[in-house]
């Protein structure tokens, strides 16, 4: 087959592939850049068909007609490419009519110049026929309008390449890098063909390889669309993400000067970009938001109240190349709504607890009098029912006491009267108090103190509360006739009190939640064991208020040991 005819077949194939891609783009026209891709591919197809027709028609007027018509595609291509690159690099970008008009002026002008070239010869100064490889080719001398159009096209293509390269630079996803590379190959392949043609280095004389290069463009875009989901996934630029954020973001350099701030930050402080950039954070931001230190500690979060609103401020280090710190990113989240909800919840719990406490007290006392047969002897069945009612009312009363204790702790209203206290004596008193309750579980207590007295500075009543809770928990979870050991020992300037049982142990998945309010390994336990799920969190808070630590060790099936450490009186 004649080489020129072979290339003409390639041109036709390129046109078919291009039309296929144009149809695909039209089908996905709602995606960003899809319409521009369709127009680009239709322009390629038009150029290819006209080029093939120009070669395959023998007469000069027919060749000139197709050569002139090919300028419809030639002129449209760079503008369509530019819009595609713009839409890809700036998701959501939609060219305005004025932009389309500006980009459309040059292609229309070139087409008019081409169709009227006979009268002005600005595009090609002369055109003759020359025999190449058995076919007649157009031998043209290019005019100033052609060179002007070429420079304009190259500028648009260069801008497109720059936009796409920027996407690679800012993208961390291989998916998006693949998309951009496929588009870059799609631009560069015909561009190389065009340069070769214009400088006279093309392997087949008089044959413009530019449209053939579009065959590579078609393949590259096909690969980009189906392998890297070019039209389905469009990278969202990080600055768009930053600007769209509801939370305020401020970036400081190492000198605590503001180097960046998003729209939410500007709105929050009612400042313009000019007012905020480059300024010292301490002088521009309101006092609660300004970093206290010259180098604000990273990974630190705090909550503040400002203008009747609550904000959570978190600092994160900004690192260059993932190593050296170059600044600090401050994230400000408006948590007012969350705070209001929390306060409403706390108020609700508080009011309900207080309001329930009075009637529960009356019910409990009345049942106590009935059960004590103060107002008359009860029949056996009624006595049992009253005993059940009394037991459950006492449970409800304990729950209310615990909720109110939690409320006091959370609001910092729990008061402590510290005094010098002997933990050995405390343990004995606690055991005296719990023995009657523990009788129902049939457990034995054993106190082992390796010190004769263990003096600490603590609130006697609150420490009794902690001991009673730990001992009652141990009793509840011990097997029948199980032994509970209470140990008091010295431990590096402190005393440790441990309560060890031989119960089932704490399930592995529950250990991290054990000190959370209302946490129970098995929710059915609250009925079975009579607990509220608040006891341990109250104990932890009380011990921590004493500057101590409450912890535990547990082995499945072998039991648990809860312990707390308190500093000894020096």
């Amino acid at each position, binding site marked *: 087959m004649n080489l020129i005819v072979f290339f003409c077949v390639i041109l036709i194939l390129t046109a078919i592939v291009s039309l296929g891609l144009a149809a695909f783009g039209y089908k996905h026209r709602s995606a960003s850049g899809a319409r521009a891709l369709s127009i680009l591919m239709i322009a390629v197809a038009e150029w290819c068909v006209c080029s093939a027709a120009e070669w395959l028609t023998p007469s000069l007027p027919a060749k000139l007609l197709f050569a002139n018509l090919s300028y419809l595609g030639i002129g449209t291509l760079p503008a369509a490419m530019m819009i595609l690159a713009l839409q890809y690099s700036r998701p959501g970008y939609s060219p305005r009519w004025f932009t389309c008009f500006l980009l459309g002026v040059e292609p229309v002008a070139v087409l008019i110049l081409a169709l009227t070239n006979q009268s002005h010869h600005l595009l090609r100064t002369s055109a003759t026929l020359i025999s190449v490889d058995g076919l007649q080719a157009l031998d043209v001398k290019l005019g100033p309008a052609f060179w002007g159009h070429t420079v304009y096209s190259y500028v648009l293509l260069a801008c497109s390449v720059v936009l796409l390269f920027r996407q690679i630079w800012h993208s961390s996803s291989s998916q998006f890098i693949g998309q951009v590379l496929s588009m870059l190959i799609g631009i560069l392949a015909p561009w190389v063909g065009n340069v070769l043609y214009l400088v006279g280095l093309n392997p087949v004389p008089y044959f413009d390889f530019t449209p053939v290069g579009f065959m590579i463009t078609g393949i590259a875009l096909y690969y980009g669309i189906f392998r890297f989901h070019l039209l389905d996934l469009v990278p969202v630029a990080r600055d768009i993400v930053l600007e769209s954020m509801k939370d305020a973001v401020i970036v400081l350099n190492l000198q605590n000067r503001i180097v960046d701030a998003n729209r939410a930050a500007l709105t929050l402080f009612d400042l313009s970009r000019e007012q905020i950039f480059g300024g010292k954070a301490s002088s521009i931001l309101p006092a609660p938001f300004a970093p206290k230190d010259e180098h604000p500690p990273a990974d630190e979060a705090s909550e503040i109240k400002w203008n009747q609103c609550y904000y959570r401020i978190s600092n994160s280090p900004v690192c260059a190349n993932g190593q050296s710190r170059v600044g600090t990113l401050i994230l400000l989240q408006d948590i007012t709504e969350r705070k209001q909800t929390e306060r409403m919840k706390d108020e609700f719990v508080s009011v309900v607890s207080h309001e329930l406490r009075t*009637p529960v007290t009356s019910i409990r006392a009345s049942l106590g009098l009935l059960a*004590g047969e103060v107002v008359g002897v009860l029949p056996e069945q009624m006595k049992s029912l009253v005993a059940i009612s009394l037991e459950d009312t006492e449970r409800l009363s304990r729950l209310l006491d615990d909720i109110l204790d939690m409320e006091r702790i959370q609001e910092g209203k729990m008061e402590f009267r510290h005094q010098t206290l002997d933990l050995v004596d405390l343990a004995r008193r606690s055991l005296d108090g719990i023995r009657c309750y523990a009788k129902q579980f049939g457990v034995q207590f054993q106190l082992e103190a390796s010190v004769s007295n263990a003096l600490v500075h603590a609130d006697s009543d609150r420490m009794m509360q902690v001991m009673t809770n730990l001992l009652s928990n141990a009793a509840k979870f011990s097997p029948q006739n199980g032994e509970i050991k209470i140990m008091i020992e010295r431990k590096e300037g402190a005393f440790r009190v441990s309560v060890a049982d031989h119960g089932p142990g704490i399930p592995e998945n529950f250990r991290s939640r054990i000190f959370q309010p209302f946490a129970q390994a098995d929710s059915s336990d609250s009925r079975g064991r009579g607990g509220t799920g608040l006891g341990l969190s109250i104990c932890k808070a009380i011990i921590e208020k004493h500057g101590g630590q409450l912890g535990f060790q547990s082995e499945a099936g072998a039991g648990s040991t809860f312990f707390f450490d308190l500093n000894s009186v020096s």
Partner: protein
Amino acid sequence: MQYMDSLSLKKILLVEDDCHLQYIAKIALENVGGFTVKTCSSGNEAISEGRNFLPDLILLDVMMPGMDGPSTLKMFGHFPETAKTPVIFMSAKVQKHEVEYYRSIGAVDVISKPFDPMTLSNCIREIWEKFQKS
């Protein structure tokens, strides 16, 4: 016959605004403790009834609408019939500093709420005996 040990404590003026608690405490004090109980629902009522009833001891709720416990205690001091009558406060607020405050203004002791009706009388008797010894 436990209450025979402290014969001098017979008449108790119970001041409590919650009618349910008032009724329960009255039954507990009368049936369990064997005391003669006069009930009042407010500080003002207690002032006028106290002067006629002449109680051996006053059991006074701290938080009441209108005249509260401490104000009522102060008013008792203004009348010779009740000026020297020992007063025991009943309160849900029994943290150490609160108890210290009640004592500082003249209360003999404080009974914490909620109280156990079965042990309330014994508790009062213990406070009474301690007070008599002092």
